[in-house]
């Protein structure tokens, strides 16, 4: 188990926009927004509207949220092992996989946005972890998957890498073999995160940062 580091060891916090690879989008209308706004300038969307749209209690935040029991014990164990392996290389990101059957008209990105923010946070440690979380929302009713990052991990991730990763698991997702799909996604996530780390290193090297940054 890798011990967590505190802020002083990681160096001065830098504004996310200096590192961000992707733009920002409204979870409601999916239009690009130029800056971190309180509500979407195009449709007026905000966290409050998401709560109005999904007016029920969000589930507890766990590594796997599977209310319909799609995953067996063996699969859960494999997912847990893959998670631990990944955490040894990348101690900060936390991956969460949620399997639900959504209505056709419900956009998984919007549902994931709501879930990520509405699921209860118990303490400061959980707060920190939520910011470093990446939620894979799997809509088993319509074979759709969305990826939603927390604010802390968001600047480092390239959305295209997630799309490519998911595309390669098309067979497992279509056949409902979610255990295999999730384990492969976790294994593939190491490559996505390595790519992100290299990008950060490149940027920091270019600007003369030291290796601890």
């Amino acid at each position, binding site marked *: 188990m890798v011990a967590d580091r505190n*802020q002083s060891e*990681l*160096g001065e*916090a*830098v*504004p*996310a*926009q*200096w590192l*961000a690879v*992707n733009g920002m*989008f*409204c*979870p409601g209308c999916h239009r690009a*927004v130029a800056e*971190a*706004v*309180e509500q979407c300038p195009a449709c007026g969307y*905000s*966290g*409050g509207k998401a709560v109005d749209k999904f007016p029920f209690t969000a589930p507890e935040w766990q590594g796997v949220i599977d209310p319909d029991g799609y995953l067996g014990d063996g699969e859960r164990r494999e997912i847990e092992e893959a998670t631990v*392996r990944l955490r040894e*290389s*990348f*101690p900060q990101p936390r991956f969460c996989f949620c399997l639900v059957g959504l209505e056709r008209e419900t*956009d998984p*990105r919007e549902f*994931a*946005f709501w879930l*990520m*923010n509405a699921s209860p*946070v118990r303490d400061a440690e959980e707060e920190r972890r*939520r*910011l470093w979380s990446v*939620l894979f929302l799997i809509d088993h009713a319509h*074979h759709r*998957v969305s*990826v*939603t*990052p927390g*604010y*802390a*991990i*968001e*600047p480092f991730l390239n*959305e295209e890498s997630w*799309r490519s990763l*998911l*595309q390669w698991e*098309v*067979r497992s997702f*279509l056949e409902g073999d979610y255990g295999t799909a999730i384990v492969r996604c976790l294994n593939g996530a*190491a490559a996505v995160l390595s790519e*992100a*780390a290299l990008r*950060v290193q490149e940027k920091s090297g*270019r*600007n*003369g940062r*030291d290796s601890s940054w």
Partner: protein
Amino acid sequence: MVKTIFLVVIGALLVLPMAGQAFPVSGPVPTRPLDGIFDPEGWLEESIRAAMVRKILNAREKQSAQVFVVVLPERPSDERRLAARWGAEWGQGNLWGVLLHVPGETGFPLFEADLARSPVWNDQQKAEFERSLAEALAKVRRRDRVLPGEREQVARGAADLADELGYLSMVMRRMDRHNAQARGDRAQRRSGQEEQGGRILPAAIVIGSLGGLSVLILFLLFRKSGEGKAEVEGGPIWFPETIPRKRFRAPWSGGGNVLVEFRRNEEGDILRGALRKFRATKRVDNRFW
């Protein structure tokens, strides 16, 4: 009389090139604009100006990077020199950047930036910093060139310049801090040696031996625990902490834009694509496919 005419002609020759230029390169530098924008004719629209001021003051307060936007009604004789001179004067010993624009003229906006002091860095640090600064300016210019309107170019250019210089300014502070620490450590070590004189040698030998032994044990332990683990070389990877882009009044995430929908025919497309790649890579005879 001849002497007077000669002086008048010489005087006229000296003055004429400057005629019509409201801002000669060698003239006095205007007062440093408090909000970072020098726009005597009021060419910038109020909304654009307000957004730029926010960015400029943010870079100034948080990172001590001095960014200035200069909009002149006519082209100065040597615009780069003018920008450099004004920037150095207004920069007040900090890293400064100037966006100079002349509406309607080609080759604008132009960007200049430099450090208004001589840093106590080694040659490698200086070279690295100069390279980073040149790259940052090139990046700002590259991004700016593709924008359609002059006002968009100025607004975006100012924001990008503030971002890039804010970042470099932070890097500078870190370099200064590291250098200061390195100097302080060396001084401390020297003074300690002077105080202890000849007694330091046996103690150093004992401490050195113990240290060497600890390093060896730690090395063996780490090698053992690292066997068969992560694919990433050099142990766990830590990402830097960031100041998040909180939005939509959401506490933990602003949402993501990745959505993949799987369809039966898509599987076939992907597999066919993979086969095409495989054939191209391996140069396999087409008859077999």
